[in-house]
């Protein structure tokens, strides 16, 4: 150990969404708070400045704002028998980097989970019987209910300036919103975004078939907004460079637009960049955390940062990695089913149908991040699992968000991918295609988990984390079900041609194409220390002064994008810590 720093009340690992929320909420209590971020600092100007951020090569293709695998990556295998190999290039998922984290470059899809998703195992057993749960499926209840989280969903959404249309306010169903959503206590902070041509065509077709399309909730401001911290958002201008890019015009909700300048003003809050946390340090008896050890990039030395409270707020995968490296919780063993740390890693099951119209012009470069019309008619709370033969559900959306040319111009299958034919085809079809996609749940399984790799190490000599994951028949049946619902909608729209892409029987996880950055689980929450790593307040069962935020807490993946639940859980945990833990530090459960 090269040096030890003066003790802080709270040390926060990672300054992304959860780090910023916990940072400001703890600083408001008058605590001395330090956040350690391993990446660089980032401001709207200069880091997302117009027009320099409109650089598809640098940010969209070379992943300029993302984690560099050279600095941090995982190894991946599909089965227990396979040898895991390094995720050497980014592909399937794109972890964030730097101050703001993935909150800089997300699209802004922000949802509340369905009520049944928080009590999924009980819901299945009570409604369909435990027998329908496949033997190797390890789904669990979360230990917290939607009703308990509702005020915190509301708080997170009003902090974001979320744009949308409520469908269920205190039980009253409202026309134009999502009639299947869990009840919310009030409407969205901002009205919905305007819709593009493809979304309106889809919505018309869906309505004609008796479905209930509604505007997708969007953390891209549809107007100006000032949140509880005095931070401000301007109206989104549909620039078409949302996902993968920092927002150039102050309209995408991010730690930069929603929290950071307010947090920086607080004299009891400070942060250090280029400071990678190597491990959480525990007391001799391992009953508490004493602080963290990090690598000071500038000084090129290890630093021990003592603290009374340690909060893991890094990206979900990194939180789990730190726990495995630090000996927090018993590592999960898939052979025995014993242990908890690393258990229940899950991903997201998506698919889509692309439609081609010679006589309709979609300007695909006009899009926000989360515009679109969605429907929840086949959501996880709408499906008869026993009848359909799977546990799960999806929401279905159409809404173009970008037309960036390098990342792919949709062409009818069979079209050449190079040469004269391709060159002509892209002029024929660019702006003439649209997609309808399903975004769905992914269950937890005995052999989908995280542990430490036996072979590969990082630049500090620490073993990489190993991800064992594959697609399972249950979720494949679910996505094929969605296909059977989407294709008739597509046909009813009379395209010149259409084609589908859904995982089929025997599909193997392919790490190359981008799918989603919704890696969840590994440090799951629950009501039983034998089957979870953190309790319902995201407090580690083993060390009462250690909290682990983020989607690592999800016992299985919800059908939606995780951020809404991540934010709600952060405010829920902050509330419990403020009201209950700080006056009397101890295990809260």
């Amino acid at each position, binding site marked *: 150990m090269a040096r030890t720093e003066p003790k802080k009340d709270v040390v926060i690992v990672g300054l992304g969404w959860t780090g910023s929320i916990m940072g400001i909420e703890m600083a408001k209590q008058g605590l001395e708070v330090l956040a350690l971020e391993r990446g660089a600092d980032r401001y709207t100007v200069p880091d997302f400045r117009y027009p320099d951020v409109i650089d598809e090569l640098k940010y969209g293709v070379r992943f300029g704002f993302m984690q560099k695998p050279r600095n941090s990556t995982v190894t991946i295998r599909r089965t227990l028998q396979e040898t895991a190999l390094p995720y050497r290039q980014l592909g399937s998922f794109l972890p964030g980097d730097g101050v703001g984290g993935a909150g800089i470059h997300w699209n802004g899809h922000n949802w509340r989970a369905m009520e049944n998703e928080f009590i999924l195992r009980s819901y299945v057993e009570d409604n369909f019987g435990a027998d329908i749960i496949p033997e190797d499926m390890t789904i669990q209840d979360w230990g917290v209910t939607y009703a308990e989280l509702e005020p915190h969903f509301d708080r997170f959404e009003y902090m974001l300036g979320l744009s949308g249309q409520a469908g269920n306010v205190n039980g009253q169903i409202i026309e134009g919103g999502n009639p299947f959503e869990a009840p919310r206590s009030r409407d969205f902070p901002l009205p919905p975004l305007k819709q593009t041509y493809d979304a309106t065509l889809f919505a018309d077709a869906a309505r004609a078939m008796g479905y209930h399309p509604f505007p997708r909730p969007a953390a891209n401001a549809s107007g100006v907004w000032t949140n509880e911290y005095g931070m401000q958002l301007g*109206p989104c201008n549909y620039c078409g460079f949302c996902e993968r890019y920092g927002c150039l015009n102050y309209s995408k909700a991010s730690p930069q637009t929603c929290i950071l300048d*307010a947090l920086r003003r607080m004299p009891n809050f400070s942060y250090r960049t280029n400071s990678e946390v190597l491990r959480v340090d525990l007391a001799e008896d391992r009953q508490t955390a004493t602080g963290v050890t990090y690598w000071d990039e500038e000084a090129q030395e290890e630093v021990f940062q003592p603290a009374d409270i340690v909060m893991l707020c890094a990206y979900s995968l990194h939180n789990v990695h730190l726990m495995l490296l630090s000996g927090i919780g018993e590592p999960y063993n898939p052979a025995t089913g014993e242990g908890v740390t690393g258990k229940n890693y899950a991903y997201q099951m998506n698919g889509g149908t692309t439609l081609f119209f010679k006589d309709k012009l979609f300007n695909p470069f006009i899009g926000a991040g989360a515009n679109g019309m969605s429907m929840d008619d086949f959501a996880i709370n709408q499906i008869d699992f026993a009848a359909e033969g799977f546990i799960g559900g999806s929401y279905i959306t159409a809404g173009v968000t970008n037309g960036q040319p390098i990342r792919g111009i949709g062409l009818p299958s069979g079209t050449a991918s190079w040469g004269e034919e391709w060159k002509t085809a892209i002029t024929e079809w660019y702006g003439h295609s649209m997609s309808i996609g399903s975004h769905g749940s992914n269950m937890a399984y005995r052999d989908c988990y995280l542990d430490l790799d036996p072979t590969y190490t990082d630049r500090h000599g620490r073993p990489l984390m190993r991800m064992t994951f594959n697609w399972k028949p249950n979720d494949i049946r679910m996505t094929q079900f969605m296909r059977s619902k989407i294709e008739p909608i597509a046909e009813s729209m009379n395209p010149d041609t259409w084609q589908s892409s859904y995982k089929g029987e025997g599909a193997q996880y392919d790490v190359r194409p981008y799918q989603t950055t919704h890696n969840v689980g590994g440090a799951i929450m629950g009501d039983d220390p034998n089957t979870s790593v953190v309790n319902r307040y995201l407090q580690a069962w083993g060390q009462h002064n250690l909290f682990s935020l983020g989607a690592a807490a999800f016992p299985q993946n919800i059908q939606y994008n995780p951020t809404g639940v991540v934010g709600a859980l952060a405010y829920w945990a902050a509330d419990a810590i403020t009201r209950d833990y700080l006056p009397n530090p101890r295990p809260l459960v």
Partner: protein
Amino acid sequence: MITFLRILTGLVLLGLVVLAAILFMPVRTTPALAALPEDYTPPEGSGEYAMRLADCSACHTAEGGVPFAGGRKIESPLGTIYSTNITPDEDTGIGSYSLDEFRAALYDGIRQDGAHLYPAMPYANYRKMSEADVRALYAFFMDEVEPVSNAGPETALPFPFNQRWGIRTWKWAALSEPGELSSTGDAAYDRGAYLVEAPGHCGACHTPRNLVMGEAGYTAMDGDFLMGGEIDGWTAPPLRGPDSAIRNWSAEDLKLYLASGRNNHAGVNGEMQLVVRDSLQYFTNEDLDAVVAYLRALGDPAAGDNAPPVDPPRTADRLDPSAGGTQAVLTAAEPGMALGPRLYLDNCNACHFVDGRGADQVFPELDGNPLVTAPSATGLIDTILNGAEVPSTTVRPYSLRMPDFGHRLSDEEVAELATFLRSAWSNSADAVTTADVTARRETAEERAAAE
């Protein structure tokens, strides 16, 4: 002939007498404006607050420097003036100043050694500050500020302006009565008048200068007071009259602008940014209301000043597809469009939108914006070249930034764009030439090189 010589001799003798008077007549300093007890103790915090009202650090703290240790460069039309060290250091600061000597500096522009201060120090305005605030400031600088040893660069203006005794004549011509303020008897107005006319010294920028470079008025009783001035080439706009920058603002808009540098119309820019950052954001709620009441009292509702608050439509709903004029040209986005609007679409539209109305409290309006249509286009050119930033404040902590476009646009393009803006929508102001832009870019480069 002899008569002529006698008259001439008389004039010379008269001149010598006047010169002797200037040089040798003792300077009479202004006494305290109110009698406070000898053992009067300023209320806790009042000294720091008075410092905020008077914005001492704006000049007496150098860029990135130690608070109040001086050494800041102030560009005046006569040359560079360096601010002095006003920490209580005995040798290089004001540690040895008595209360009377401190007051003399604030009211009369007299240094401890009797030398006259250049009117870059706004004693012309500070001479109206109350004795209570003078005492509070004195106690603050003596007791609450860290003494710092810093002699700093000497101000050396070119001859004849380095002859400080000449300032005495300027004072005879330029200064007004100490302690004189406008008043209506309304508590809010009177407090606002005090804040604006005394410590706030708003007139130092916002009032035109007369022939001797004094302010053409010091209180609202003077017709020219706050009728607009110029600082470093930028226009400090009028705050009353038909060209008032604030005539279409509601009271809420005005108050929020003072507290945060942004409102539904504008974003603070130029030197005024620093005023919001270092001074206005610290005003109490009541004092902000007082300043607002005062400024609005200078307006004439019958002439359409003092707009009521408006609940504006969402930006996306505001863009009327049937609108003509500039908005129609920009929306149509025709390939053959003129260069001015084309440059607008390629650089500005992303935030300021096709109707030039920006977005409330985030992106300033360009349509009807005094910075855009000011008589001097310097501020507009500077903003396009170098961008802009509103400071982080308590009520609005986000330091919103406009990026600079100087590296992306040629001088010709900046001139074309600025000319377009000055005649777009309802704007009507003179064109901007390429030479104007080149000159401004050169000034910035010269300054940067001289750093």
